[in-house]
């Protein structure tokens, strides 16, 4: 085996490299493992949007977009393998959809010069573009999410949280731990009591955490879960009869696949989102004509219009707009990864532009700069209606508490700059 292996892999790697002229935007997906239920719709949406651009407009600026897919299984070691394999194809931007892999890639992409786009996940302090030159996490990040969730709770409680108890049920990983610091600051500011309940990955086992919730009766539960942990948490919450309208998930804990297994019990469960839901957008007509009816849908094609499908498509849309901007700035349609970075930094997506793209009132306006790689961080609340089987938006976009978040982001990015020996830019 040892002798034939090198030859075979060499041949395989050669065969995998695409034609050089196209723009390459890899899809680092996971369609297997405990996170597949969430990974599949996202990957499908991401791929379908680029298929639409290729089919309808002939790509962007006349350049077709290649979307090579690589299976990471949400596993950092496979993520490394994917990164090395994709790196040789000169990707414009990477979107690993895993906070763990993002943390691993942040130092590497700086050296290799590949932008990283992590919408709604990854390292929160990457919002500070003066330190994280190559990372973009617009339109919202984990700390925005935590702050918006607390603001919504404030709304529900008439503006006073003193003496209230909020429990955070989180995936015991970099992802789940991200909001802790923000919530601690917020608990100090608003006077609520915070209980931390970690759930070890992948998260099928959370009986004891929910027993604790049943015993301590927190007024609200905020959840940062992903993959199989979502479905299990919803079921456990139903089992202990926790009031669903006081159970708020981050945007990664709010897809159809997460609430359906709990059946009617999940009715009223709330989750954050940073974009609209459902298929009532003109974009879907185009997708239907050019992608679904043409038989070009990614995956099994059964995820259309779901929350995570929309989010994948939204990520693709932001990347496509950044490519457009980069082409405009560079004056050529064959842009490089470095020009792509400049495109991201000058990105401007207005409400009118979203309407032109067929998604009116879908996402917030995004405007990035050298200092701000994370946008404004607005999010809205959606609520699950089990009998209709759909998510309803129940609030407008809510602004996060910048007073708390900005100093935290500054402190964390400054710590990273010191650790990595970076000098902040943008002066």
């Amino acid at each position, binding site marked *: *085996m*040892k002798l034939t*292996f090198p030859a*075979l*892999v060499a*041949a*395989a*790697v050669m*065969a*995998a490299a695409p034609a050089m002229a196209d723009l390459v935007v890899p899809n680092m*997906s996971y*369609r*297997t493992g405990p996170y*597949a239920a969430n990974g*599949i719709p996202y990957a499908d949406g991401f791929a379908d949007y680029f298929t639409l651009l290729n089919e309808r407009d002939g790509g962007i600026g006349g350049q077709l977009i290649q979307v090579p*897919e*690589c*299976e990471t*299984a949400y*596993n*950092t*070691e496979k993520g*490394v*393998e994917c*990164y*090395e*394999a994709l*790196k*040789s194809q000169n990707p414009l931007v990477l979107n690993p959809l895993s*906070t*763990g892999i993002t*943390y*691993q890639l942040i*130092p*590497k992409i*700086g*050296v290799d010069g590949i932008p990283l786009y992590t919408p709604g996940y990854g*390292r*929160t302090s990457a919002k500070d573009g003066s330190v994280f030159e190559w990372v973009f996490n617009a339109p919202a990040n984990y700390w925005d999410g935590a702050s918006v969730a607390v603001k919504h709770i404030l709304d529900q409680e008439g503006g006073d949280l003193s003496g209230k108890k909020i429990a955070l049920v989180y995936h*015991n*990983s*970099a*992802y789940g*731990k*991200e909001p*802790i*610091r923000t919530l601690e600051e917020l608990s100090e500011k608003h006077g609520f009591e915070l209980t931390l309940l*970690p759930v*070890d*990955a992948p998260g099928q086992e959370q009986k004891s955490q929910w027993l604790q919730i049943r015993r301590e009766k927190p007024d609200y539960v905020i959840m940062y879960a992903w993959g199989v942990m979502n479905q299990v948490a919803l079921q456990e919450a139903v089992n202990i009869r926790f009031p669903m309208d006081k159970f708020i998930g981050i945007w990664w804990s709010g897809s159809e696949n997460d609430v359906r297994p709990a059946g009617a019990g999940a009715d009223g469960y709330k989750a954050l989102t940073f974009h609209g839901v459902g298929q009532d957008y003109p974009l879907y007509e185009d997708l239907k004509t050019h992608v679904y009816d043409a038989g070009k849908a990614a*995956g099994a094609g059964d995820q259309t219009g779901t929350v995570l499908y929309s989010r994948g498509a939204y990520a693709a849309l932001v990347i496509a707009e950044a490519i457009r901007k980069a082409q405009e700035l560079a004056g050529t349609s064959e842009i490089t990864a470095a020009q792509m970075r400049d495109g991201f930094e000058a990105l401007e997506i207005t409400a009118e532009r979203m309407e032109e793209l067929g998604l009116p009132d879908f996402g917030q306006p995004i405007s990035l700069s050298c200092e701000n790689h994370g946008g404004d961080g607005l999010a809205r609340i959606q609520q699950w209606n089990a009998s209709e089987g759909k998510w309803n938006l129940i609030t407008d976009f809510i602004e996060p508490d910048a007073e708390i978040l900005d100093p935290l982001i500054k402190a*964390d990015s400054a*710590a990273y700059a010191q*650790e*990595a020996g970076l000098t902040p830019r943008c002066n």
Partner: protein
Amino acid sequence: MIYREAGDFKTSYRDDSQTFPIRLDRWGYYAVLAVAFGIVPFVINDYWANAVLVPFLIYAIAALGLNILTGYAGQVSLGTGGFMAVGAYAVYKLMTSFPEVNVVIHILLAGGITAIVGLLFGLPSLRIKGFYLAVATLAAQFFLVWLFNKVPWFYNYSASGQITAPTRTVLDHAVTGPAASAPAKYLVCLCFAFVLAWVARNLTRGTLGRKWMAIRDMDIAAEIIGVDPLRAKLSAFAVSSFFVGIAGALLFAVYLGAAEVGEAFGINKSFLVLFMIIIGGLGSIFGSFAGAAFLVLLPVLLKNLLVGSLGWPTDLAAHIELMIVGALIVLFLIVEPHGLARLWTLTKEKLRLWPFPH
């Protein structure tokens, strides 16, 4: 016809007990070393280093370590992942606390720290054996992962609990951190794997190894002939943990660059390394390498073959890959329950008789 000892005369006891008594084996071994040290570093690229060879070498070191404990000394351990985590966090703390010291020394020290921790968790082995010991080491696995998650001092109070390896150099070449080049990473891992395999080979055929094997084969009999079980078992735990700790340190610092204890050093890692030595062959140095190669290289090869060459959808390929690897494990174990190393020995014995088997 060619592969035989006839004509290969030994004139000293030293020659007679060498690791590779047959000339062709010896040449093969030197050739592999020459290629590994002399040719591969010049042709290696990032993909080959980071996705294929570096993980292979690191897992081979971990498998060597577990093989010393389980294969040679007969003490079943499910705590490998936890001990690798000790190595990783030890090297992280050392690298960030003493940046001026060479990283190779840090990695060796991390191995030493893991050896001490392994020694502590080896104490129950004096009272309990077999499955009961496996459960005790399983407790070590869960306790260590919990500890590194719980105590912020271990991850320098970072917000997310992730540890990230800073850039450190050996002879002015970065071997950790984002700027490390493929040959540098590969060579560091290769040197560690080579030296540790050489140490393991010589330990296991010396007094210590014989004591371990005596304990493995029948501990009461070993005690009667004068093997001190306390020292034999604890030395096996210490040496094994030293190897595993170095593997963990390399895995974090050189290979991954950033790690999180639950994901990188969970119970899955313990099972992975245990499968490596079972498939490779218990009580065999070659088996450790063969097992690591089987479980690290085969999935990458299959992925490249199915997705890269045949253009299959990634999810289908990932599922088929699991099925193929699983089926091959079952097949190999049915064909040869003692692992790939035994298969290799049998092949060699057949070769010696060829073309006149009788």
